[in-house]
């Protein structure tokens, strides 16, 4: 008979609006299920009602942190649907902004990991160092997080020499900091005690449960869209994907920290070898792509992101499907939360495990929340507590 402990949507510290229903016996978690129904915004339904150009700014707001990934995926999707080719320089600029967004997203995650194991100082320091990257993003694109940088046909602003120099200098400083964090993750006895062996996902389980991104790469599955299905100029920018096989939260932490270093290297390389030229291909005012369908895949910081569009010749998409990395990792995290196969999961590990997939539930929940019966909101709260008492 387990006790049902909700790590609920309104949990003050829990980063995401999800209800994790834990069945616990003593300190051990026996079963878990996830209810992500608290922040649905109906992006897919709304996209069917907006023109392609307007839809870009809605797609951009699917996720706060990985918005460069969503805008690039959306632009590439519509460009290949309509047969437009973004100029070379634009693709290099997109790659730079995407890798910078990855650095800022991974640094944010590092802070959240520190917070979930109670490491207040690392949380503060990681967020302080992230400020430098956010200032760079505001310098290049005009927005700290919602960049509005990628548009169908290219990018909106160019990077001049002064900006390039500023990027390189602040990234070199950031690199020392990240190397220090990497050594910290490797050496600090308490951090290791809280992450090594926690949230175990064997590589066969990772393959079966279709895990993506750092979660898969930490379990020995070498799967990175930038290598397997390059979409920008990834062939010309040298980088080696990061794969660990420790299959636990510590492995995921090391994968993300190494990816920050990889991304810094890519951005510096890209800044030195960027070709000159146009940065934006003009598209007609009332843009109507030919009927057809198209798939675009991008390696978002959290994993592989898929956009699918079906157009019927009008200026609005007939159907626009977004499958975000967190949705793919949900099945994997439910499996990780259960104590199975000799691996015991403590209540203290739940935030670490759930945080280790870097959940972005706002991405995952995308359908409109509409109250059919006007005052439904009030009844559901009583209904919620009534059901809890009944359980």
């Amino acid at each position, binding site marked *: 008979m387990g006790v049902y*402990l909700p790590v609920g949507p309104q949990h003050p*510290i829990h980063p995401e609006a999800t209800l994790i229903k834990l069945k616990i016996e003593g300190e051990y978690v026996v079963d878990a299920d996830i209810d992500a129904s608290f922040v649905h915004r109906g992006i897919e339904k709304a996209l069917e009602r907006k023109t392609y150009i307007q839809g870009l700014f809605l797609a951009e707001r699917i996720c706060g942190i990985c918005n460069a990934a969503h805008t690039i995926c959306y632009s590439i999707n519509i460009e290949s649907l309509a047969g437009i080719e973004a100029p070379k320089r634009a693709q290099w600029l997109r790659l730079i902004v995407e890798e910078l967004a990855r650095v800022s997203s991974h640094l944010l995650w590092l802070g959240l990991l520190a917070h979930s194991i*109670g*490491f*207040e100082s690392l949380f503060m320091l990681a967020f302080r160092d992230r400020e430098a990257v956010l200032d760079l993003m505001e310098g290049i694109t005009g927005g700290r997080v919602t960049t509005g940088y990628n548009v169908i046909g290219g990018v909106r602003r160019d990077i001049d020499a002064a900006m390039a120099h500023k990027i390189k200098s602040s990234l070199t400083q950031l690199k020392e900091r990240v190397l220090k964090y990497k050594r910290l993750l490797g050496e600090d006895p308490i951090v290791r005690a*809280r992450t090594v062996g926690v949230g175990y996902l064997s590589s066969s389980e990772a393959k079966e449960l279709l895990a993506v991104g750092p979660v898969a790469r930490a379990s020995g599955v070498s799967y990175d869209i930038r290598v397997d299905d390059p979409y920008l100029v990834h062939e010309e920018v040298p980088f080696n994907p990061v794969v660990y096989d420790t299959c636990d939260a510590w492995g995921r932490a090391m994968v993300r920290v190494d990816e920050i270093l990889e991304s810094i290297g890519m951005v510096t390389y890209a800044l030195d070898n960027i070709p000159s030229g146009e940065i934006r291909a003009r598209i007609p005012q009332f843009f109507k792509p030919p009927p057809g369908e198209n798939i675009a895949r991008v390696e978002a910081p959290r994993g592989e992101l898929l956009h699918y569009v079906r157009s019927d010749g009008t200026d609005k998409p007939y159907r626009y499907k977004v499958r975000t990395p967190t949705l793919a990792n949900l099945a994997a995290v439910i499996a990780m939360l259960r104590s199975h196969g000799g691996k015991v999961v*403590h209540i203290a590990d*739940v935030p670490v495990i759930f945080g280790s997939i870097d959940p972005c539930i706002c991405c995952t929940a995308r359908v409109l929340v509409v109250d059919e019966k006007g005052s439904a909101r009030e009844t559901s709260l009583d209904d919620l507590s009534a059901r809890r008492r009944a359980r």
Partner: protein
Amino acid sequence: MIPKLLQVFVYPGILYMVTLAFFLEWLDRKFVARLQNRVGPHYAGPYGLLQPLADFVKLLTKESTVPSGADGLLFTLCPVTAFIVVTTAVSFVPMTSTRGLLSTEGDVVAVLALITIYLLLVYTAGASSPSRYSLVGAVRAAHMLLGFELPLMLSCLSVVASAGSFKLSEIAAQKVWRVFGLHALGFAIFLIAAEAELDRLPFDIPEAEQEIVSGWLVEYSSWRLALLRLTKDMELLLLSGLATTLFLGGPAGPAPPSAENLLYPLYFLAKTALVVFLLSLIRASSARIRLDQFVTLCWRYLVPASFAYLMLAVWVV
């Protein structure tokens, strides 16, 4: 009679202890903030000095609720008794001169006993409120009690053994610094056990925000919560004062006999601030360990080390 009452309630008494407790909390928060490259309390009073007092008063203005299903009497009694218990323990610590407000034979044992009673009150406070989180927090607090209790007591007793007396005032009168050489081990054990007893990082398991909201404190509000937080500050004063008396040679320092009762409190303040600095440093540079890891840490390392220190203190020093 009046000066005695004045002494108990104002100078070395409760009012002075409470201001000292608030000051130490400010020092700790300001110092951890500086370590994390932040500013810390800044707006209430000069350099944020009145911030702890502001928090206390703000909590008093909040509406006080007792959750349905909670054991009303126990729910209210626990904060009050906890405060009384810790205040009596603090009054043993010699703060203004080598003799505390209260001083009897064997008051080291009395202080340790009062600390244990406080910890049992923490458990009853958590168990008396119906929320699941406070229940888990209370059980964790009790569980931890088994871990750090023994090392705390053993390190105190080792100092008593090397000082040859159970009276705090006599230990303080010896003015012996027990931090260098072999005693560094005892001091380290005491600091770690104190950090655990104060429920501070890396041992804030009973109040782990990320897992069980705020553990056994979750149902408390307004004046009860204010009292509990004040008790935690008093506990910080108690343990750092104890560390000063036992390991840093009490409030004594080079001072002409005439200006003694003026300089001793300042020495006490400086040494306690040093201890709080060390505690904050531990807090600012470590993550939280899990309950089972904490118990193994205690029984595999702390307890044998404190036994070894006891042996050394008795024979060698």
